[in-house]
C-alpha cells in the first residue's frame, strides 16, 4: 500500500476557501499535492451529485469547503449548504458509503494554514484507508453488468 497516492477532489467556494488556498500558496506553506481543487461560486452551488460523480470517476477522498457561517458572500449560501450536507451525510451513512472519505470544512480567505491542515489530515486519513475499492468495485460491476451479455 506504500505506493498508494490518494486522489482527493476538493470542491471549494470562490470567495473563502479558494482564496484561502491561494494564501496557502503565497505564504509558501507546503501541503499534499494529491488534491485537485474545483472552484465554485458558492458552497450553495455544490450539488451532492458532483460528490457522487467524483467517487464514480475514481476519487478516493473528497473535501468540501467554503466560507464560515455568517461569512457567505451571498449571505446564506453556506447555511443552505450546511443543511444539505447534514442530509447528504446521513443518507450516505445509511447507504453505507464511507463518510470518513469526505471532509467538510469551513476555511476562510485568511486561513491559509488551516487549508494546508485540512488537506494534509484528509490525505493522511485517506492514505490510511487506502483506495476506495468498494466504490470502484460498484462502478466496475456496473460496467460488467452491461457487457455480461456481449
Amino acid at each position, binding site marked *: 500500500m506504500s505506493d498508494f497516492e490518494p486522489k482527493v477532489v476538493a470542491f471549494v467556494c470562490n470567495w473563502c476557501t479558494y482564496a484561502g488556498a491561494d494564501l496557502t500558496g503565497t505564504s509558501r506553506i507546503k501541503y499534499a499535492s494529491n488534491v485537485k481543487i474545483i472552484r465554485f461560486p458558492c458552497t450553495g452551488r455544490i450539488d451532492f451529485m458532483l460528490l457522487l460523480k467524483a467517487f464514480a*470517476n475514481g476519487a478516493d477522498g473528497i473535501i468540501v469547503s467554503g466560507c464560515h457561517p455568517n461569512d457567505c458572500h451571498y449571505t446564506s449560501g453556506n447555511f443552505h449548504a450546511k443543511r444539505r450536507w447534514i442530509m447528504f451525510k446521513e443518507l450516505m451513512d445509511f447507504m453505507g458509503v464511507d463518510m470518513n472519505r469526505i471532509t467538510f470544512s469551513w476555511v476562510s480567505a485568511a486561513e491559509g494554514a488551516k487549508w494546508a491542515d485540512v488537506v494534509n489530515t484528509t490525505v493522511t486519513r485517506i492514505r490510511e484507508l487506502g483506495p476506495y475499492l468498494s466504490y470502484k468495485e460498484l462502478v466496475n460491476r456496473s460496467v460488467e*453488468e*452491461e*457487457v455480461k*451479455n*456481449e
Partner: protein
Amino acid sequence: METTGKLIRKQSLEKLYNLLSANRKVYAPVIADDKQVEYKYNPDFKDVTFDHIRSTLSVKNVVFPKVENLFYYSNTKTESTITDIDINKIPEVVLWGAHPCDTAAFDILRSIFCWDIKDEFFAKRLEKMLVVGLSCHLSDEYCFCTSVDLAPNSQKGSDILLTRLQNGDYQAEILTEKGNGIVTSSPELFESISEEKVSMTEVKQKFNHEQVTAKLAGAFENPFWVANSLRCIGCGACAYVCPTCACFDIQDETKGKNGKRYRSWDSCGFGLFTLHTSGHNPRQVQSQRWRQRIMHKFSYMPERNESLGCVGCGRCSSGCPVDMNIAEQLEALQNI
C-alpha cells in the same frame, strides 16, 4: 419438424438440466429472498422452481437485454473511430422453465425487430437460444393466454416443451431440430410416452381478440381512454415487465475519450417518450399514452406485424401499482 412426444422421469430432469448447463449458460426461474420469482443465470437445480405462476420480469431480456451495447467509439479532437461489437461472441443460452406465454413472445419480438430490416443483435441472440418450455399447471386471475390464441401448453417458441404428468414425471414434446439435438445427444434421459394424464391448469377466455381489434379500428377518439386511464400514474412498470414490449431508447455514454452507444428499454407510458425538442408533444397526456399502448398491441401490430402484441401473461396487470387491468379493459373495449 414433426413433434415427437417423450417422457422424462422426475429424477432425469436434474440430469438434463446439468447436461445443458455443462456447456451453456442456463437461465432458469428461482424464488428470491423476497419471495419474488426471478430468472437467474446458472442457478443450482435444487433452487429452480417448477411451481411458479409468473416471474416478476419476463424473460425477454435473453433476446432483448435491458441494456444492449451497439458499438464503442473513441474521440480525439477531430477524429472519431468506431469499434464493432462481435455479435458472434453472444453466448449460447438455455432458457429453462419458461411458460408458454413467455416463449410465444419471441415470435412477436421477432416481428418487431426483424420486419423490414433485420436487427442482428436480436436475431443472433434468438439463434443462440435453446428454449425448454414448461406448461402451466398453475394460473391465477391475471392470466388470459386463452384470449390471445394461446394456451397453458402452447408449443410456440419452445424447442422442448415439458408438461407435468400427474405422477410427477414430465412429458417432453420435442418441437424443433434444436430440441431434437438434445434428445439425440442423450437419449438415455428420454423414454417413450406413458398413458399418464397431464396436470394442467385451465385459463378462462376473457375476450375475443379479433373483436377487440375490429372495435379498436374506430375507437381512437373514444372517451373510453380518458375515463379508464385517469388512475394511470405514468410509470414504465407495465412496459418493463411485458414480454413483448420492445420500445427502446438509444443513448451515448462517454468516459474521457471513450464511450459506447447503447440501447435500453423505454416505455410509451413516459411523458417524455415522444416529446419534441420544440416542446410539442404528440402524446401530451396519460390517456393518449395508454391508448397508444393498447392500440399498438391490439390494432397496429395485427395490421403491420401480422401478430398480436400480447401473450396474456398478465404481468402488466399484476405488476401495476394502480390496478390498470389490461384484460378487463380489453373486455370492456370489445363491448364499446
